[in-house]
């Protein structure tokens, strides 16, 4: 093993090590998974099972997300045509055939093999032959429901929004967009003046999604609820 001196300030190491290496093929594998998702969308709520190498315990949570129908996937895969940019801007021919993007059974033309930069255990690729399992969730449908609820909120109909969100909760209690649903529901409850219920749901939200990026929206709504309650309690304020 080479012996090298550490910098006098070990924190300099953080700035020295540069970007993380990405294993050969990783980008394509994730893209393929999204493409599998897209194909799965056409076959009514089917997803590709989590990869065989996936850790036990994680797959149960991730598998619903692994191959959800994504409008995003369409765009992402369209973007893949130019993914040579990602691969050090080699500027060679596109590696994916555009027609594959709309094929029900997409066939990819991958780029010719290049010397691998990193040796890692080969990432598993969901194959077209992999048995499909019933989806627990469907992102496109989840998203559609949340869009409807958001439209109701924008139109000043929080009760209508709440009804749509309740439908989402019944259909997708552990959906991918549960976090966004709960945040919107809390906002709707506050708008309707149901502060107590909003706070109860807010506490559950904080416990369930402590690192949520939409947490601030929830906190702001709850702060409004508290301010409104204070006004009711002390009308001189």
């Amino acid at each position, binding site marked *: 093993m080479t012996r090298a001196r550490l910098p006098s300030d070990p924190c300099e190491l953080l700035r020295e090590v540069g970007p993380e290496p990405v294993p050969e093929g990783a980008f394509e594998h994730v893209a393929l998974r999204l493409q599998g998702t897209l194909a799965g969308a056409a076959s009514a709520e089917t997803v590709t099972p989590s990869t065989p190498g996936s850790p036990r315990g994680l797959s149960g949570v991730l598998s619903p997300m692994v191959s959800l129908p994504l409008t995003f996937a*369409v765009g992402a895969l369209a*973007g893949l045509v130019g993914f040579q940019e990602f691969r050090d801007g080699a500027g060679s021919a596109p590696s994916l055939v555009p027609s594959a993007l709309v094929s029900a059974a997409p066939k990819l033309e991958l780029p010719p093999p290049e010397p691998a930069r990193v040796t890692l255990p080969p990432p598993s690729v969901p194959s077209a032959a992999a048995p499909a399992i019933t989806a627990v969730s469907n992102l496109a449908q989840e998203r559609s429901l949340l869009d409807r609820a958001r439209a109701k909120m924008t139109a000043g109909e929080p009760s209508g929004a709440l009804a749509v969100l309740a439908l989402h909760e019944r259909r997708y209690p552990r959906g991918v967009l549960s976090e966004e649903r709960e945040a919107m529901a809390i906002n709707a409850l506050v708008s309707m003046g149901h502060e107590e219920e909003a706070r109860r749901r807010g506490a559950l939200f904080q416990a369930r999604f402590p690192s949520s990026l939409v947490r601030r929206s929830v906190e702001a709504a709850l702060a409004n609820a508290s301010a409104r309650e204070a006004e009711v309690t002390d009308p001189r304020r």
Partner: protein
Amino acid sequence: MAAEPLPVADTSPAPLDASQVFRQEFRYVWGSLRRLGVHDADLEDLTHEVFVRVHAQLSLFDPTRPLRPWLFGIALGVSANYRRLARHRVEVFKEVTELPDGAHSADEQVELQQRRELVHRALHKLPLEQRAVLVLHEMDGFGMPDVALALGINVNTAYSRLRIGRAAFKTAVQRLARSLGGLR
């Protein structure tokens, strides 16, 4: 005859395109998850999950802010959830063997690899919230206001975590370097 008013240039940032984000930031998201302690075997799953969330939350992104801290915030949420689910698993970093890249000599590359491994192991000793601040500020080079915004904390808290995290990182590096016997 009055001259036609010239069209006013739209200087507002263009809305983000999910496919472009995926293409351009795949490597960043992958690397961030790795630095946040996600196992190599799980990186594909979690990178996919991050981009699912990116899509779902893209409308919430403020395009006047830098994109990467926002992506990092999503990656942090995903990795925090992952750690809760995977807490029973032994966390072991494998040494990633990099083949020659042409830019470094073989010796330099071995040394870089050792340093990177040391950084990962030392970061792994830190609580996730300190690690997140160190990665965003020290490794990615973002200013503390952006770091605080990305992590949903106030700037004073971010500075406090940075200070404590730096001290903990130094201690971890020194201990690991002694025990590994390579770098010193």
